[in-house]
């Protein structure tokens, strides 16, 4: 049985991003109501895992694309588009990381910053889906190790 690790990583990244958004939404609600004192930890953990998973998947996709290009399995047009999608993802990713960093620095109690992290994760999910869809359309798939 041969499976594409890319597909699994992509599914996991999307799952983590979805979970991260849901968790952060709940946390913002909790903080607004000032009822939970430990929700901040879950918020940070979920957000971190979503970002880490998305970042690692991005690495795997782009590394594979780079190898395919070097092996002339990808053309210049595909390379150019992958760079556009990749950098779009990277920009949103860095925004989300900076927002989470600021949130942690503020002591996990700033609802406005939590909302920024939540929005950044939602934007990241959209950008990740765009990158994934295009990468798959040109045949980029992380190969299993031999």
């Amino acid at each position, binding site marked *: 049985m041969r*499976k594409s*690790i890319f597909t*699994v*990583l992509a*599914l*996991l990244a*999307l*799952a983590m991003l*979805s*979970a991260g958004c849901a968790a952060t939404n709940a946390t913002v609600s909790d903080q607004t109501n000032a009822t939970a004192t430990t929700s901040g*930890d879950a918020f*940070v*953990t979920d957000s*971190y*895992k979503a*970002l*880490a*998973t998305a*970042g*690692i*998947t*991005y*690495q*795997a996709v*782009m*590394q*594979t*694309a*780079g*190898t395919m*290009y*070097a092996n002339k399995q990808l053309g210049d047009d595909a*390379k150019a588009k*992958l*760079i*556009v*999608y*990749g*950098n779009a*993802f*990277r920009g949103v*990713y*860095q925004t989300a*990381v*900076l927002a*989470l*960093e600021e949130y*942690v*620095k503020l002591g996990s109690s700033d609802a406005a910053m939590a909302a920024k992290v939540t929005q950044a994760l939602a934007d990241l999910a959209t950008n990740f889906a765009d990158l994934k869809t295009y990468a798959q359309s040109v045949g980029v798939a*992380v190969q*299993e*190790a031999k």
Partner: protein
Amino acid sequence: MGAAATVAVVSEVLELALKVGVPAVQGVIAAMGKDEITLADVQALKGLVAGAESYFVSTQASASVSTGV
């Protein structure tokens, strides 16, 4: 995505990790295993994602991958 679906995906990743030991999968598992996240952990995420161009600069090899999250 529901909890059951998430568990199914995680199980699949674990199965694949045991089977092939791909660094990317190992990195995901390392991230998933963290129970406490420090400011340093979050700051380390900044270096995880390189510019897209960097993966295409060499015809011999693509950009190095670091999954030490």
